[in-house]
């Protein structure tokens, strides 16, 4: 990914990449870089991540020449590389260190992250959510183009939750550990955020148009379904997790019928109220007519 850089910073970047190539030029580049750094914050508005007070970037000499990326992108790359070591090392700083090694960085780079592996898990969860969104987006396109049938809601929810949970399968041995880390106080805001946005996404693609009280109930219900199914999956040993999908089917059916029951209750309630009103009117009419006579 390329950043749009203005020329003065380009010289600085060139120095960062080429410093390993030519040592003689080291002196001049270092002194020029020290001057550049002071103008750094003011010049650099068009940076990709607006978060850090000092937007900064790194030069990755090696495969892609002159390919500059921000710290955050480098961190993402390290975490993605670390995922393949999770089955062996768990969601730990060790996995991150191994990931950094595959990128050609020192194992000390794992020190950039929290030592309990939280960032690795959050990164994985957000990656899964993105994949799910893309999947649902594609399905929706197919429906719009008329190439596929629009699924009934319960089928849609079942498929979406199953697709999302299947992404955990390669890491399922260590997933209980991940769940417990996500429940740590300092992680709860981020993990809750990711969970709710995923549930939002699913309802959005399911064609949820409601803007009233139902919006909350639907999300709460689906969150419950998702969480319980996830827990069942942790201790499921049936072939290809059949038991889990059957559990999921039952829960979604429950959720659907709960919606119907709620409607039924509402309409019964209305009918009862009308009956009472009618009775009250009749009684009062009878009373007045008797009074008139």
């Amino acid at each position, binding site marked *: 990914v390329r950043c749009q850089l203005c020329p003065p910073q380009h010289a600085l970047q060139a120095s*960062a990449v080429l410093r*390993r190539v030519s*040592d003689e030029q080291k002196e001049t580049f*270092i002194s020029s*870089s*020290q001057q550049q*750094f002071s103008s750094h914050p003011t010049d650099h508005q068009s940076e990709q991540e607006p978060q850090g007070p*000092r937007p*900064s970037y*790194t030069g990755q000499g090696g495969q892609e020449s002159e390919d500059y990326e921000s*710290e955050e992108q*480098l961190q993402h790359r390290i975490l993605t590389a670390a995922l393949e070591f999770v089955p062996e090392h768990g969601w730990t*700083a*060790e996995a991150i*260190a191994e990931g*950094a090694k595959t*990128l*050609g*960085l*020192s*194992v*000390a*780079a*794992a*020190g*950039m992250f929290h*030592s309990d592996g939280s960032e690795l898990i959050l990164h994985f969860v957000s990656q899964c959510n993105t994949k799910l969104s893309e999947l649902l987006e594609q399905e929706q396109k197919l429906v719009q183009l008329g190439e596929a049938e629009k699924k009934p809601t319960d089928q849609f929810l079942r498929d979406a939750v199953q697709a999302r949970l299947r992404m955990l399968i390669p890491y399922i041995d260590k997933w209980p550990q991940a769940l417990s880390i996500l429940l740590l106080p300092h992680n709860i805001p981020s993990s809750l955020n990711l969970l709710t946005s995923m549930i939002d996404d699913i309802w959005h693609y399911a064609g949820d148009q409601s803007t009233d009280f139902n919006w909350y109930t639907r999300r709460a219900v689906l969150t419950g379904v998702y969480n319980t199914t996830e827990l069942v999956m942790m201790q499921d040993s049936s072939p290809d997790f059949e038991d889990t999908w059957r559990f999921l089917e039952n829960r979604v059916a429950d959720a659907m019928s709960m919606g119907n029951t709620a409607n039924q209750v509402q309409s019964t309630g209305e009918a009862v109220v009308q009956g009472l009103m009618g009775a009250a009117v009749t009684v009062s009419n009878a009373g007045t007519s008797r009074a008139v006579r």
Partner: protein
Amino acid sequence: VYQVFESVAKKYDVMNDSMTLGIHRVWKDILMHKMNPSPGTLLLDVAGGTGDIAFRFINYVRSVRERQLQRKLRHHQNLSWQEISESYQEDKSKPLGDSQVVVCDINKEMLKVGKQKAQHLGYSEGLSWVLGNAEELPFDDDMFDVYTIAFGIRNVTRIDLALQEAYRVLKPGGRFLCLEFSHVSNPLLSRLYDLYSFQVIPVLGEVIAGDWKSYQYLVESIRRFPPQEELKAMIEDAGFFKVDYQNLNSGIVAIHSGFKL
């Protein structure tokens, strides 16, 4: 600088304990936990004369390695006895997992005391002792995983040169860690600290090490040292990223960390 530490070398550890009331051990332990080194890490400890950081590093790596081996053994349920014993042999021969620490100091006396301590405490492998100047390190580029300087950067004449050298010898992805006395922001604590520093420490220096002047110099150099934010800016200038600091004991000591990315 050289003369100060020549006279101070033998009594260095004793003075450290009495001046900081033993808390310096805790500071160094915290530094080690922050570093969280995995086996196979190559550490350069600059101005590390008597080896405190180096010994802690070896202990840490040794225990991490033991835990790693235990975990591996637990996974060996399905292997044959032959395979298990083979892998056990090769793991046994690497109790540190190829981790190494190079202790570099400008002062021969400090290194000598360090080597004696190592022998006395039974540290035999993974240690090297090198004479060198922090402003001009006798090492190649891109060599080390971690560079530490504990209570040493204060004594370097050109701090910016030392930081540049640190950047040079670190591998890409490598980490710079600096443990140093710093600025106390809390005014009440600051007054007590000043009182203690100027009244008590030189006296201790005279009584224990027979050297008032060196410890007077020590206290003054602490006051002259740039505060946390300024040091952070200097580290960033040398090219490090994700530079951050952690105050210990509300600013009496600070750990600065930066990465070469």
